Every structure is written in structure tokens, then in C-alpha cells.
């Protein structure tokens, strides 16, 4: 057997993962694996807890996207208790949710994925971070990034009750009214957010799209996968993060399914692989065809590019303009180039900012009709939102007193688990030849997962029945003297 390269930990993502690349005797890639060795296990340990605790418990899954879990859980409670939220509650929730989407997408562009382009894919790793980004875009621009995210987080703390783990959602409503006196501040922030989104798109245009080498990289077959796509849409098939039906299109962008949250289990099936804690979902209608792309593939993708591929447009004017520009430059729908996720994410940034402006003007936002308390006996509920990383599904069953008896979470990153595994192996095969491996090439392998903005801390809740374990025995000098593996 040839050399094995391990990237551990992989960097600039949420959670912990590693990549093993196995070279053959000629120094070319034999296999590459994307491994998620951590287990969170929330699906199991929430059993026996009161359903109304779920928005708080599940938001602890992650410190980066607690708002997505909080909102999916809240919507699942609406369904569980059979109660329709008031119009005001919907407006407050959606406003709050778009604040979150705006700041979270910016986190990825400037701190996590963006450095690969802004600083360069093969730049020294010490520079591929926010400090390297500030060095490139200038101190003033760097300050703007930090300031707008800080202002956004402050508003989220005000509306959601806490800066990180919100206490906003209740079955049928929200816990707190937005006062009319706050409206001007919300409108002012939305206006600033739109300007900042335009600035960010302009920077992307100047740094990435104006650089032929980067455009070639985006369009290269190193980062290309034909798959199905899934995303939430409104009644006009335009992207919506908070509410709507889930639309699925095939690799030719033809609609193959459109379903209500409660029907997700008839569309999505899940399988467990013995080598990872992350589940591998696929489209039930197509069936599991293995880790393969193309027209017959059962694999689907989620996240910004998938949402845009699965929709027929954006609901706000500037976002629609950028959406059309993206597809025009990248050759029409659907776009299968994984690195185009970065551009799609920025289209969503401006959509989130514009949607904030729309909602800040909505009369119902500040009404005191924050809660519908026509609660029914709890049974079963499904809540779906579009998390920054894709379609997020919470499904609960309870007994008659509202105690959880079963929970199923299909977290956004899980939706991309098969595509990420295939993507890193494909990138490794294309990039590593004849034993030539260096830091820049390995980072370009990482770019194949980083574009998805995966959140592995959110993604591993299944218990396959046995826990793989590796025990390393070292002497007092730290020298490895024995290694035992249980698979």
C-alpha cells in the first residue's frame, strides 16, 4: 500500500472532521474519505423531555447556527400542538431569521470559505483567515465586516432574548413583541445591510470574477457534481428561508417533487454507513444508487446553490438581478459547479437584507398579537426551515402529555454528506498526481467541502449500534507503543 495523507483537523468549518487520502504505489489517489468522528446523539437523548423544551435543547446542538434549530423546533411545535402562528408571530420570526441568515452567510464568506479566494487557495495557511482577508480588502473594509455583524447580533439579542441561544419561539407564536418604537432602528439596519451586501458582491466581482484563474477554478471539473437539488420555495417557487413547500429538481432542473414539511418522510430516505456517524439521505423516489452523480443519482444537495437551483427566482429585486447574472455567467440552470456555492451564498445575503427591509415595513411586525393559544393535544409535528447550510428538518412525536417519544433530525449538512464525500475524493484525484502533495494542494482538496459551509457539530445524531473506537497506547515519553481499533 502507498502513502496515506491525513488532514486532521480539517479547518475553517463548524465542528470536527478529517480527510484521509490513500495513494497507490504510483503516487496517485486510490481512495479518499471524508470522516466525521464526533457523535452528538441529540435524537436519542431528547426522548423523555417535554416537547416545549425542544427549541432550547436543540439550539444547543450548535453555537453557530442555534437560530436555525430553534426555528425548526418552534415550527415543529406549531405542528405538534396543531396551532397556526399569528401573522405577527410569523413576521417577527421571519425578520429574526433573516437577521441570522445575513450574519451567518457573512461569517462564511469573510471568515471561513472566502479566504480561499480573497487570499488565494495556495497562499500560506497562516494567511488564509480573516486577518489575511483584512490584509487584502483593507482595514476599513475589515472594520465594516466586524461592525455590521456586531450590529446584527445585537438586534438578534434584542429580539430573540439572548445573543446566542434564542428564547423567542413558542408554539403558535413568539415570546416577545417588537415595539413600534424599534421600527426605525430595524429599517435603518436593513438599509445598511443592503448596502453592505452590495459592497460584498462588488468585492466578490473584483476579486473572484475578474480573475480568470479563479473563474476557471470555479468552472473546472475538479469541483463538479451533477446531482438533484432541494430547497424551500414560496407559492411562486421563489426562495424562502422561513416558510413554504420543499421543491426538488433533478440534475436537469426539472421539478420531480414538491412537498409539505409533514410529508418529508415519503420523499427522503436515510441510510447509515458503518464508517461515519453522519447519516446519508437520498431521494426515496429514485432510490439509493450508491455514491454516484448524474441523471440516475438518488443523491440530492442542499445549501445556497441548491436552493437557487431548486427555485425559479428570488423574491426581491436586487437578489433577482444577481441571480440572473450568476446563471447567465455560469451557463444557465442548473449550475453543478460546487464552488459556485460561494456566489449563490452572496445572492442570498442580499436577499436576506432586502427581505429584512420588506418586513421592517410590514404593519403586522409590531402588533401585540404575538401568540395564538388555541393549542390542541400534542401528537406529531414536523418543522422545516432553510438553514444557512440547507434544508433543516425537525420531526417529533410525543405522548398525550407532550413528552417526546421520538425525534428525527435531518440537519442541513447531512443533506450534503454524500456529495461532500464524493467531492473531496474527486478533488483529491484531480489534484494529486504522481505523489506530488503540498499544503496548497491539500487546501484545494479541503475547498471541496468548505464551499458547503458544513456544520459537523450539527450533523451527527444517529447511533449505528456500535461505536467505532481507536485506542492509542503511548509511553511516558509520548511514543506510540500500541494501537487497537474496533470497527
Amino acid at each position, binding site marked *: 500500500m502507498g502513502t496515506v495523507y491525513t488532514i486532521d483537523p480539517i479547518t475553517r468549518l463548524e465542528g470536527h472532521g478529517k480527510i484521509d487520502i490513500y495513494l497507490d504505489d504510483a503516487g496517485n489517489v486510490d481512495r479518499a474519505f471524508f470522516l466525521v468522528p464526533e457523535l452528538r446523539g441529540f435524537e436519542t437523548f431528547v426522548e423523555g423531555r417535554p416537547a416545549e423544551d425542544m427549541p432550547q435543547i436543540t439550539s444547543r446542538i450548535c453555537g453557530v447556527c442555534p437560530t436555525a434549530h430553534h426555528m425548526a423546533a418552534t415550527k415543529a411545535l406549531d405542528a405538534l400542538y396543531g396551532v397556526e402562528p399569528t401573522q405577527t408571530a410569523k413576521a417577527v420570526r421571519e425578520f429574526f431569521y433573516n437577521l441570522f441568515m445575513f450574519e451567518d452567510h457573512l461569517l462564511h464568506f469573510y471568515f471561513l470559505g472566502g479566504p480561499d479566494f480573497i487570499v488565494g487557495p495556495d497562499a500560506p495557511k497562516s494567511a488564509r483567515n480573516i486577518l489575511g482577508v483584512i490584509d487584502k480588502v483593507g482595514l476599513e473594509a475589515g472594520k465594516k465586516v466586524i461592525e455590521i455583524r456586531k450590529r446584527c447580533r445585537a438586534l438578534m439579542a434584542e429580539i430573540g432574548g439572548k445573543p446566542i441561544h434564542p428564547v423567542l419561539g413558542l*408554539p403558535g407564536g413568539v415570546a416577545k413583541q417588537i415595539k413600534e418604537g424599534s421600527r426605525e432602528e430595524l429599517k435603518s439596519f436593513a438599509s445598511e445591510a443592503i448596502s453592505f451586501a452590495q459592497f460584498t458582491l462588488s468585492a466578490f466581482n473584483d476579486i473572484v470574477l475578474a480573475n480568470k484563474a479563479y473563474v476557471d477554478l470555479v468552472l473546472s471539473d475538479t469541483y463538479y457534481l451533477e446531482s438533484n437539488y432541494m430547497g424551500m420555495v414560496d407559492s411562486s417557487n421563489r426562495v424562502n428561508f422561513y416558510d413554504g413547500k420543499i421543491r426538488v429538481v433533478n440534475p436537469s432542473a426539472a421539478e420531480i417533487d414538491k412537498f409539505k414539511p409533514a410529508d418529508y418522510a415519503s420523499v427522503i430516505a436515510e441510510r447509515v454507513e458503518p464508517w461515519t456517524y453522519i447519516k446519508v439521505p437520498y431521494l426515496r423516489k429514485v432510490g439509493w444508487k450508491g455514491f454516484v452523480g448524474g441523471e440516475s443519482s438518488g443523491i440530492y444537495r442542499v445549501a445556497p446553490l441548491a436552493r437557487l437551483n431548486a427555485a425559479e427566482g428570488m423574491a426581491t429585486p436586487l437578489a433577482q438581478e444577481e441571480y440572473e447574472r450568476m446563471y447567465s455567467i455560469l451557463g444557465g440552470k442548473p449550475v453543478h459547479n460546487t464552488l459556485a456555492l460561494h456566489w449563490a451564498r452572496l445572492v442570498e445575503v442580499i436577499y436576506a437584507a432586502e427581505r429584512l427591509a420588506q418586513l421592517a415595513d410590514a404593519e403586522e411586525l409590531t402588533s401585540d398579537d404575538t*401568540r*395564538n*393559544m388555541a*393549542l390542541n393535544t400534542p401528537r406529531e409535528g414536523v418543522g422545516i426551515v432553510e438553514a444557512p447550510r440547507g434544508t433543516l428538518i425537525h420531526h417529533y412525536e410525543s405522548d398525550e402529555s407532550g413528552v417526546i417519544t421520538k425525534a428525527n433530525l435531518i440537519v442541513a449538512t447531512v443533506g450534503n454528506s454524500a456529495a461532500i464525500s464524493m467531492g473531496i475524493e474527486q478533488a483529491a484525484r484531480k489534484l494529486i498526481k504522481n505523489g506530488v502533495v503540498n499544503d496548497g494542494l491539500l487546501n484545494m482538496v479541503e475547498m471541496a467541502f468548505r464551499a458547503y459551509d458544513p456544520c459537523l457539530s450539527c450533523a451527527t445524531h444517529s447511533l449505528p449500534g456500535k461505536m467505532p473506537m481507536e485506542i492509542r497506547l503511548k509511553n511516558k515519553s509520548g511514543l506510540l507503543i500500541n494501537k487497537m481499533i474496533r470497527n
Partner: protein
Amino acid sequence: MVEVLNCRGLKCPQPVLKAAIKANTLPAGTTLEVHADCASFPDDVTKWCADRGKVLVSIVDQGTYKVATIML
């Protein structure tokens, strides 16, 4: 017939959720007495009664907790 539901120690929205669940199991005309010490309980139970067409007979402050009497 009077049913007593002890929700002391539970925070919003739990007391009203428990009351809603309990109410669904009882026949119309039953009196439900809910004991709770969450600060928002009086407002919540008042709104729940209004939304569900129940008669809120009284909310009595017992010092460390409140008792809402509801005619279902």
C-alpha cells in the same frame, strides 16, 4: 367536578401548555384549577381562555404562587 393541575416550578410556556393538554381530556363544564408560579402565567392563562372560549373565573394570588380557576 374540580380538577387540580399543579404547574408550580414550570416556566412559560409550560403551565398553559399543560393546562391546554389537560383541558382536552376533560368534559365541558368541568372546573380546572391551575396552580403556577411563573411570572407570565396570569397573562398567558387569560389569553388562552380568551382564545379557546373558556371562562376564567378567577386568578387568586396565594403568595408564592397563583391559582387560576377555569370553567371549561
